[in-house]
């Protein structure tokens, strides 16, 4: 074996990245459920022996993958043989929600473990009170679904039949879950083979060195950027209203000092007796997303990036819920809030001009009656609004950290989900004014055939329910626009006029917010 030079290492790093992108595409094409195929709620990663992510196809899952891998390794560090596959999906043990299942397997070369390969994805259901396992009224995790602590799903190349059968008995959609897990396994098997071939070509040492290099490189790049930011500290707090009763309180002290980012969420409020809690892993993932968003695309998203972050949470708070508190809604909602809160604070401290990296995300799950025993449909893919403006650009569409979801094709949805898409349009005067304005809000009108149930937790967004003459239930979703950046009065006049011409801004708003005289507009 020859020693590998830095160019060789960098080439291998890129190959890891290309590989996970390819594996991600495999999962996206093979999986059975819409949440994976269109909402792209999954990831595939290569990890080192300590749970460090070497490469991952979905930057949003960096923290989740790390948390899950550490939990699985803690449990099976001395019992991970070639052909083993660990299954886990337990919010309070390295996970986010019951239905977010993760698989991890050792990649072996000549009988010894070199790296790990893992994949995780959102399943359409894993039991509990409500179809879909998202239950705003839940107080305990058992009302949401069935937690799955680390379990061997395969042992030495053989499926563990009773575990697999039992898992599938706990979902209302066993065919979909089975198909999804097969898709994850297929990608993992393909990935393992590729890494084994790489090891055969380049030598195990080179592969291991490249895995270390990938993370070291990300860390180095990140620290270099951090060094340019200066030091400082800011405290931020958010106490959103969430229906009746006390809502979640998220309080963060974000500091940049001595080449690291510390985020202290210890002063956040106590966990709630509702599903609006986040697990420690969900929170860690959100903080990683925020830091990664502020660092920008130059820093590869992998375990090296996490080395910068010192995160503190207090057990029993809303951002570090204790077992068995419910978490099915907090994972989506609090995560988006933490990304926004921490990301914005960090961006301001850093003096970067990226705008708010995220916005609070509502939860809207519908189950059309006509769909019978189909899985409920998460309408998140339609929520392509909320991106804030930033220095040099207007907001457009969804905040970039959420932009992995594909905009669903209306025809495909109509065919699959018993939902007719009757209209999708931008809403006039819904974009936050600014020198760089936010993304306009979006109005989506859907008809649910034969009526249906809607489960929602809304934050800044609205839904309107009504009936149509012909029978279907009418559901109108109004997604909020993004925030503006900078003084609106300094916005380029021609840009304001263009927005007026496009119908995004009314004459009145142009005058009131941007100070553009009506007569000037008319001229």
């Amino acid at each position, binding site marked *: 074996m020859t020693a590998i030079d830095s160019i060789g290492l960098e080439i291998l790093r890129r190959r890891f990245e290309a590989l996970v992108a390819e594996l991600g595409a495999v999962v996206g094409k093979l999986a059975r459920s819409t949440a994976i195929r269109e909402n792209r709620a999954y990831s595939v990663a290569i990890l080192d022996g300590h749970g460090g992510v070497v490469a991952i196809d979905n930057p949003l899952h960096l923290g989740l993958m790390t948390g899950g891998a550490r939990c699985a390794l803690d*449990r099976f560090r001395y019992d991970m043989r070639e052909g083993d596959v660990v299954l886990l999906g*337990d919010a309070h043990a390295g996970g986010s929600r019951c239905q977010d299942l993760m698989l991890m397997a050792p990649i072996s070369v000549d009988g010894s473990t070199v790296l790990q390969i893992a994949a995780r994805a959102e399943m359409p*259901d894993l*039991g*509990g*009170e409500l179809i879909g396992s998202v*239950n705003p009224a*839940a107080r*305990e995790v*058992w*009302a949401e679904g*069935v*937690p*799955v*602590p*680390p*379990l*061997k799903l395969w042992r030495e190349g053989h499926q563990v*039949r*009773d*575990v697999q*059968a*039992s898992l599938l*008995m*706990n*979902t*209302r959609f066993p065919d979909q879950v089975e198909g999804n897990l097969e898709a994850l396994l297929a990608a993992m098997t393909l990935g393992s083979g590729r890494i084994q071939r790489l090891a055969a070509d380049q030598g195990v040492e080179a592969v291991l060195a490249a895995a270390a290099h990938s993370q070291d490189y990300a860390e180095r790049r990140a620290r270099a950027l951090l060094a340019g930011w200066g030091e400082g500290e800011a405290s931020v707090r958010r106490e959103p209203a969430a229906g009746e009763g006390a809502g979640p309180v998220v309080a963060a002290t974000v500091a940049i000092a001595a080449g690291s980012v510390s985020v202290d969420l210890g002063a956040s409020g106590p966990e709630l007796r509702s599903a609006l809690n986040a697990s420690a892993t969900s929170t860690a993932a959100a903080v990683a997303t925020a830091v990664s968003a502020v660092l920008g695309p130059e820093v590869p998203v992998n375990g090296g990036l996490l080395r910068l972050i010192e995160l503190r949470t207090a057990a029993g708070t809303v951002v570090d819920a204790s077992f*068995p508190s419910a978490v099915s809604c907090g994972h989506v909602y609090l995560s988006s809030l933490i990304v926004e809160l921490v990301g914005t604070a960090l961006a301001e401290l850093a003096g970067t001009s990226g705008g708010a990296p995220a916005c609070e995300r509502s939860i809207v799950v519908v189950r059309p009656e006509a769909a019978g025993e189909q899985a409920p449909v998460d309408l998140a893919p339609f929520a392509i609004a909320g991106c804030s403006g930033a220095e040099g650009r207007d907001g457009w569409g969804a905040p970039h950290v959420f932009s992995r979801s594909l905009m669903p094709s209306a025809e495909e949805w109509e065919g699959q989900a018993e939902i007719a898409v009757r209209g999708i349009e931008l809403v006039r005067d819904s974009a936050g004014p600014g020198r760089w304005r936010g993304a306009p809000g979006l109005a989506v009108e859907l008809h649910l055939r034969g009526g249906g149930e809607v489960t929602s937790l809304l934050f800044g967004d609205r839904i309107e329910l009504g009936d149509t003459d012909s029978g279907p239930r009418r559901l109108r979703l109004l997604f909020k626009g993004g925030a503006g950046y900078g003084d609106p009065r300094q916005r380029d006049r021609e840009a304001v006029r263009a927005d007026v011409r496009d119908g995004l801004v009314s004459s009145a708003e142009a005058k009131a917010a941007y100070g553009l005289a009506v007569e000037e507009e008319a001229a």
Partner: protein
Amino acid sequence: MIDSVTAEIVRNYLETVAAEVIQTMTRTSVSPIFNEAHDCSAGVFSYDDREVSLIARADAAPVHIYAALSSVEASLEFFRGNLAQGDVILVCDPYDGGSHLPDYTVVMPVFIDGKPQFFPSVRGHMPDNGGPVPGGNLKARDIWQEGFRFSPIKLYERGELREDVWEWIVRNNRLPENLRADLEAMIGGCRVGEQRIRELCDRYGIEVVLEAVRWILDSSERRMRERISAWPDGEYAATSLLDTDFAGRRDLPIKVTLRVEGDEVTADFAGSAEQTDGIANSVPANTLAFLYTAFSALCPEIPINSGFFRPVRPVLPPGTIVNANEPAAVRANTVTPGADIGDVVMKAAEGFAPERVGTCSIDLLGPWLWGKDERSGRSFLHYELLCTPTASGGVEGADGWGAWPATFSSADVPSVEMSEVQYPVLYKSGQLVTDSAAPGRWRGSAGWETVRQPHRAADQHHSIRVQGLYSPLHGFCGGCDATGNYVVIDPGGERERVVSTWTDSALSPPDELILFNSGGGGGWGNPLERDPELVRRDVLDDLVSLDGARWDYGVVLDPELMTVDPEATAAERRRLGEQRAGDRPWLSLGRKNVLERTGIEPPSETED
């Protein structure tokens, strides 16, 4: 050919093995539901490469042990080709070998000569099994809302503990420490069973033991066939009504037609209600358990094992309340509609074996209370059997007495004192209720009234289910139906309310009193034929009032001397006999009292 003496010795040995298995289990388990209430049972099963047979049972709530037969069958089916000495299998799913999710069955194959020939087994009702609601979800509409499911799953494989599987199971339980300990106790019981079975085989040799097992099964089958042959051929039908499915439907019929033909009986449940949206759906393992329970009560002289069941052919129409299709919710089925299944089979048997019938079921009075025990700061979940101890009925030659009918008598009534130590509750009173015993020539057991109050409990929530108020357990051969179960919250207080079907709420105020009335079992035979001296004794014991003696039994007593007035009694009995011979239905005094107390309207006569 084995001689009958040796075979009987083996049979009794195996019965003793089953008894030792369950003794080991109940004495080492930690949950009061096992070590106090014995809501569990043990069995020894055999397997001959073709079929699984129950060969001995102990402490056997029939609902458990007859259903465990399905659990052993499901284990063998699932692990066909993948079974080894040292495996320990756990079964729970109603659609895969179980009855309802909280009944966990441990199945342990005992390999002899390289084949799994025996299976000691313990089934127990776990206080919790995950799911949205502690102790069971009253409002479940599908099986996933009832908790954690699993296929037959190995807790040990070839003697090696499967730690990850244990972690998964206890993770889905609100009482993980109890569950772990109780499972260990069940496994421990089975290990003792294995040891004893091996000792038996060492002593007699496996061939002799297997021959004895065949003899045991064939002997019970032969005796059962003889018994059936003695019954007149014909069709005997009966209907029971289930008060509520807890999901909006009322008075759901459970029908059975027993067809006696030669030495076989077909039990056809056609005409039973369609399966319900709620939790009152039975599955075959559970329905068969109650069918067999009734037959075992009809034939107490025959040793109960799979041979006994062979001449009984069940017909369970799919999609009905006795054989629901997956994924129907089934949480309540071990009593609701289980009790009605047992009761209706017994009622139908009245037509061919009147001298052998009597209440063999219990009807539901199920209170769950949970919250935080302020004395310890820990969560508690109290599923109590203390308030529901009477369902024993009259039979020819004996009054109903004590707690549950003989078929359920392995379950114990927990002690009040222990319950108060274990749970944050106080029992204010417990008493037999005057005039509540179903009248008959042989009366049912008297009803039992308990008044309970939470004590030093916080965040408490209770879920109470009642059946058998609108349509109580049947009386037989002219005996009266039971008087009916009911619950009253804040009895006599300003906020008094009657629970006639179910309630699910927080208590307010938190120390509110709750009265539970458990209405006893059915009577047997015409009450006007009851020995007046027995009526007099019941009056002296305060079980029957002077009014009740006259109203129900036509017995007139001198209120001062407490002696029977024979002439007045004869006249009164004549008068009542004529009155009751007409179309006008009459109600026993106890039943009348219950209807007045609860203000309910029972359904009109059963349509057959």
